[in-house]
């Protein structure tokens, strides 16, 4: 039990002569093992069900081997081609060989859709040519261009070259409204085809407005919660939490009933003469609808961290300030407010991160100009089935969030954040 203390420089020993450190780690090993054992199920669940799939999916954004996998003859030749000179007979021969094999193995659809994303109209080009490929004879350049004139176009071959590269920034570029060319350069898309950057900016803008609106609306509520007598503040807290316990879908649909043209709010406006019956406000299926309902839905996330911080600020600070001659405003602004910043920081980043990836609400009430990036990701996941682009967009969103988080850490400091 007692360590020998005859010499301070010597290793501490137990009475049995075993080094104390060794004995200690042995004694702690069992409890560490038990602690680890207790968290193992969660650790497994998270890594198998969450981290791993996300990583796998995100790699789709930069890696797509559909072309390389099925166009085995053409891919190596395309890699050597400079993308500018006239396609050679070798290339045509390899293409025909691959088309024949694809037709036989019934994989032509996959390659055709992959190609179609790079160059619209390629789907029919591939499927119809593959049907006739078996009967074609050398020289393949002539016979193939006879089937479809498009095979003679350089554009078609350049698109194939881009697609043949499995690991490429083609989808990332596309997610940022840019195009990856056969030469390996990245150029901006023509203005009418740029939609994603606009959408990212709108998403950030909506999130920011929701944060600011939530702060303006939530701060006084948090203050009341923290300073009212406990009986009243508990009631108020339940009112704040009540929407929290209601399904997101229900809350969003409730806003539809409130905000629509014939809805409660517009009816009230008509009654009070703010709007006429023929000319009602458009409060939903646009950006306004998204902003109103998102602010409401995310408000508890703003109120609760601020409230929990305010609760820890003793009233004596403000009293002390007043006793020293500060007016109510000075005492609030210079003494009380700075101490609530950790709560504001936590609430703001929580709301912002939740808002930036909001999906159901903008989908239901967003209409044209109220949709956000997540709705677009969903579109590519479920409608256009362009999972690679969806993954690239998700990756960009993740990077933006991490970047903002980093800036936030530099400006406010994560240590200053207090969630409860």
């Amino acid at each position, binding site marked *: 039990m007692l360590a020998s203390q005859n010499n301070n420089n010597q290793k501490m020993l137990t009475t049995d002569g075993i080094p104390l450190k060794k004995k200690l780690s042995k004694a702690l090993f069992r409890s560490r093992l038990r602690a680890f054992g207790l968290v193992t199920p969660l650790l497994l669940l998270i890594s198998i069900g969450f981290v791993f799939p996300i990583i796998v999916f995100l790699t789709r954004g930069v890696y797509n081997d559909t072309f390389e996998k099925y166009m085995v003859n053409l891919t190596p030749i395309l890699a050597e081609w400079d993308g500018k000179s006239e396609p050679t007979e070798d290339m045509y021969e390899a293409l025909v060989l691959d088309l024949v094999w694809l037709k036989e193995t019934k994989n032509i659809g996959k390659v055709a859709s992959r190609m179609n994303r790079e160059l619209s109209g390629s789907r029919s080009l591939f499927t119809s040519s593959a049907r006739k490929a078996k009967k074609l004879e050398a020289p393949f350049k002539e016979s193939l261009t006879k089937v479809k004139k498009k095979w003679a176009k350089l554009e078609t071959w350049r698109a194939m070259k881009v697609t043949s590269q499995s690991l490429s920034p083609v989808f990332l570029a596309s997610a940022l409204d840019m195009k990856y060319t056969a030469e390996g350069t990245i150029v901006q898309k023509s203005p009418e085809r740029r939609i994603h950057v606009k959408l990212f900016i709108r998403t950030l803008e909506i999130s920011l407005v929701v944060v600011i609106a939530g702060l303006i609306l939530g701060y006084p509520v948090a203050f009341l919660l923290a300073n009212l007598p406990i009986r009243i503040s508990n009631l108020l807290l339940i009112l704040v939490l009540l929407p929290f316990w209601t399904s997101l879908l229900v809350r969003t649909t409730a806003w539809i009933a409130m905000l629509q043209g014939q809805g409660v709010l517009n009816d009230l406006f008509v009654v009070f003469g703010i709007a006429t019956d023929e000319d009602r406000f458009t409060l939903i299926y646009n950006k306004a609808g998204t902003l109103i309902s998102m602010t409401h839905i995310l408000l508890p996330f703003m109120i609760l961290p601020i409230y929990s911080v305010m609760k820890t600020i003793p009233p004596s600070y403000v009293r002390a300030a007043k*006793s*020293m*001659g*500060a007016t109510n405003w*000075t*005492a609030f602004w210079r*003494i009380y407010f700075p101490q609530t910043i950790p709560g504001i920081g936590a609430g703001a980043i929580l709301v912002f991160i939740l808002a930036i990836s909001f999906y159901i609400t903008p989908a239901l009430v967003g209409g044209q100009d109220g949709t956000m990036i997540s709705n677009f990701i969903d579109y590519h996941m479920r409608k256009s089935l362009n999972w690679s682009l969806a993954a690239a967009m998700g990756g960009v969103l993740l990077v933006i969030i991490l970047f903002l988080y980093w800036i936030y850490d530099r400006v406010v400091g994560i240590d200053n954040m207090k969630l409860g």
Partner: protein
Amino acid sequence: MTNKSFVKFENVQKSYDGEVLVVKDLNLEIPKGEFLTMLGPSGSGKTTCLMMLAGFETATHGIISLDGNPINNIPPHKRGIGMVFQNYALFPHMTVYENLSFPLEVRKLSKTVREEKIKLALDMVQMREFGNRRPAQLSGGQQQRIALARSLVFEPDLVLMDEPLGALDKQLREHMQYEIKHLHERLGVTVVYVTHDQSEALTMSDRVAVFNDGVIQQLASPPDLYEQPENAFVAQFIGENNKIMAEVVDVKGSVVTAKTSKGNLLKSKKVNCDEVGSKTTLSIRPERIKVGSKGENTSEAKVLELIYIGDHIRCRMLVEGDENFIVKIPNAKKISDLKIGLKTQVSWSTGDCRALDRLV
């Protein structure tokens, strides 16, 4: 006139819920430069009085005046009263220097004047080199000093202290008591101090107001408070005290004769008891009792417990049916003949025993 009653409470009452009076008809005058302590158990109304003076609570009834002017309707920030809070209330997001600068900034003093005053205030509490620290980087005693400096930096005439030493350990608390006392003597500022620690009150104050149940039980200097308690509560609350329940049987001038439950007749000084036939509490300090000899008043006693303190022996005895009768025996005499279970006599002089009101 204003010098004699710099702070004045006139018929002040306070109720939080409209049903119970926390402060009942308070009348108190504090002359300029005095160190007055409000002492009492928690819930006795002492802090409420302080908060009313500071302006954080409004008096339900009555007038509070400062330097001759009623201040009931003046907001706290215009009263110009310095205050030290229980947990110091140093602003955690500001350095020591900024904390001290705050009251000067809100008074719109120029930078040079501010620097001058802050330097003086820091010197006053011997904390000059700590200006750039944050409150969290200071020990409890250092924080206490800064809080003190901050309450004095704008040179108020009146400083209120709400149990400022409550969070410190015993040794530091005693040290700070002297420091505050000396500071008060040097600056001549009027101090109203709230505490529930009686030794703190006795050590520091010019006068002590003992609060209980929303009423000042006694307002006196520390020696008077200890030697001449006016009622059973004060006798009980200040220092150690032996009480014997008895019934008044005779009153002659200032001497009361009372009969204990055992039938013993004891003489005592008339202070606060009613006529013949009423109940009274006889109060004697433990150090005024002699053991083993007869005197003006004598009672049978049995030793129950002996505790060796060092400078004295604390002896718990059974006297007049009370098992908690304490006698302090100085550690000078030969005391080895005292044994647990020993039957002996205790005696005291009539002047040391005070007949007070009946303790409920």
